[in-house]
């Protein structure tokens, strides 16, 4: 796993970008925060498009910027792929020439991504001879992603690549971003202020607010344990888990999943056994029982958990943060908390009414 270390302090017109990052980079890392929190500026600093006077940036073993030594590699000397908010395709070339523009400019030994592979993953084979202005917005953005991938980057930066697309086009591009990571194993930094995208895509998050990084870590850990998660509209999230398909029960129409040796059941899925599946749990769907129940229950999903934290929400309800190998939040009433007499470190059983797939947490 590569490490990203970066320090930038850059005065901007309305605020100051002040970032000190030291994070592992693997899978898809979302840079998430409200509009105007400095996400794009951070990305441009990482790419070398903005230059912070005392900046420092290291990716893996390679130092790309170290102003104390007067060093700052220009973007074209960094092994970075960059996809902008707008596709920025070259209008005087056709799709093929756009795709191969960067590919032709790297050495043959450095070519780890083949054009055929990218064309297939992105589904743009039928567009190769088209002029740019004959493409739809979604098609243009896919070509822009392909063009960036064909430079065989060590790090792919995506700056809200779906921002300019309508919902339908978004759904056209989103699966490709997930797939390209699974096929090509290139770590992705993904700037977005769209929660839905992030819940579907991200493995890790870098959370930004007013030019500062206010949280980093695995998606589920950050989104369930954050103090101001209510402000971000995350208050309904119980957990976002990357589970694996174990078994299909055709008789009852259920698919059995495994997460950290916990069994979870969801309505049957057309996903092969062994494959990963991202599931969402709403905190309102989690109820707590003190002992393993001997009385029959209709609840299928019962997880053994430890109480980690109790958080006041309002007059009547509290959030109980549980540990199931990763945080899981149960929203219960204040009265239930009192009746159960929950203490930190106590063993409980979390009964989960439904495990959702790609559900919207955002209202």
């Amino acid at each position, binding site marked *: 796993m590569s490490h990203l270390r970066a320090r930038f302090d850059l005065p901007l017109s309305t605020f100051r970008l002040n970032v000190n990052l030291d994070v592992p980079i693997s899978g898809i890392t979302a840079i998430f925060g409200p509009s105007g929190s400095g996400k794009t500026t951070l990305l441009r600093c990482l*790419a070398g*498009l903005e230059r912070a006077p005392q900046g420092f940036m290291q990716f893996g073993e390679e130092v790309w910027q170290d102003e104390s030594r007067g060093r700052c590699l*220009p*973007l*074209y000397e960094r092994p*970075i*792929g*960059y996809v*902008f908010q*707008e596709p*920025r*395709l*070259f*209008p*005087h070339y056709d799709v093929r020439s756009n795709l191969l*523009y*960067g590919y032709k*400019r*790297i050495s043959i030994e450095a070519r780890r991504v083949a054009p055929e592979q990218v064309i297939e993953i992105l589904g743009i084979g039928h567009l190769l001879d088209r*002029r*740019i*202005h004959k493409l739809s917005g979604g098609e243009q953005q896919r070509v822009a992603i392909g*063009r*960036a991938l064909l*430079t065989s980057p060590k790090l792919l930066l995506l700056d809200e690549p779906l921002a300019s697309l309508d919902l339908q086009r978004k759904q056209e591009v989103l699966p490709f971003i997930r797939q390209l990571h699974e096929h090509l194993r290139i770590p992705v930094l993904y700037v977005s202020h769209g929660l839905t995208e992030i819940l579907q895509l991200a493995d890790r998050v870098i959370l930004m607010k007013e030019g500062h990084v206010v949280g980093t870590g695995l998606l589920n850990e950050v989104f369930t344990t954050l103090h101001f998660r209510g402000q971000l509209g995350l208050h309904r999230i119980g957990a976002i888990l990357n589970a694996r398909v174990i078994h299909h029960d055709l008789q009852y129409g259920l698919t059995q999943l495994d997460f950290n040796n916990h069994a979870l059941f969801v309505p049957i899925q057309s996903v092969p056994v062994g494959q990963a599946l991202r599931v969402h749990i709403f905190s309102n769907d989690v109820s707590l029982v003190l002992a393993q129940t001997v009385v029959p229950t209709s609840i299928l999903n019962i997880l053994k958990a430890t109480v980690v934290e109790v958080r006041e929400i309002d007059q009547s309800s509290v959030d109980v943060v549980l540990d199931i190998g990763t945080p899981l939040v149960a929203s219960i009433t204040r009265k239930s908390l009192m009746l159960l007499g929950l203490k930190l470190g106590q063993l409980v059983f979390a009964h989960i009414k439904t495990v959702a797939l790609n559900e919207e947490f955002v209202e």
Partner: protein
Amino acid sequence: MTDLDLSALWVTVQLATTTVIVLLLIGTPLAWWLAHTRSRIRPIIEALVALPIVLPPTVLGFYLLITLGPYGPFGRVAQVSLAFTFTGLVIASVFYSMPFVIQPLQGAFEAVGKAPLEAAWSLRASKLDAFLTVVSPIALRGYISAIVLGFAHTIGEFGVVLMVGGSIPGQTRVLSTTIFEHVEAMEYGQAHAIAAILLTFSFLVLLAVYVVNRRFPIHVS
């Protein structure tokens, strides 16, 4: 047309071509700088570049004559007078036609913006590579306007030519000064022929510029 007129035509074409080439070479970086700089001296440079549009050509010619002549700063250092030579005429034309090349280029570079350039850098193109393969093709219309206007305006100059170049046949006598000579000598027929050529040429050039700008829009989206 007489042999003298033909040699004037030849000198004119050579002068305009050389001037445009020189202007493209120095105008491209200057126009690029003007299009993208945030420097405070930008308006000063822009005003200086635009000066020949409003300045009487004789004023420009007068100063250039003094500068390039044997007793001017250039003449003293180089021990050579460029006044009344073809080289002197090229230098004068470069100043005189500068706004007609710089302004279309600057406008085109501003329209292209930084976005395609950054995209090219992200695809491993060095600065020069990105400029040649991405910026210039997108700014193509600006280049066509700059070349056509610079060429046509150089052909149309008169005051500066007379001041700096005189009208030495085969060296500095161009079409515009030839008309003047013919009229002075009461040779109206010959003056008519050259005037008609210049009128037709100028009209066709401007027509070409407008047609190109309308017919071949470059799709940037």
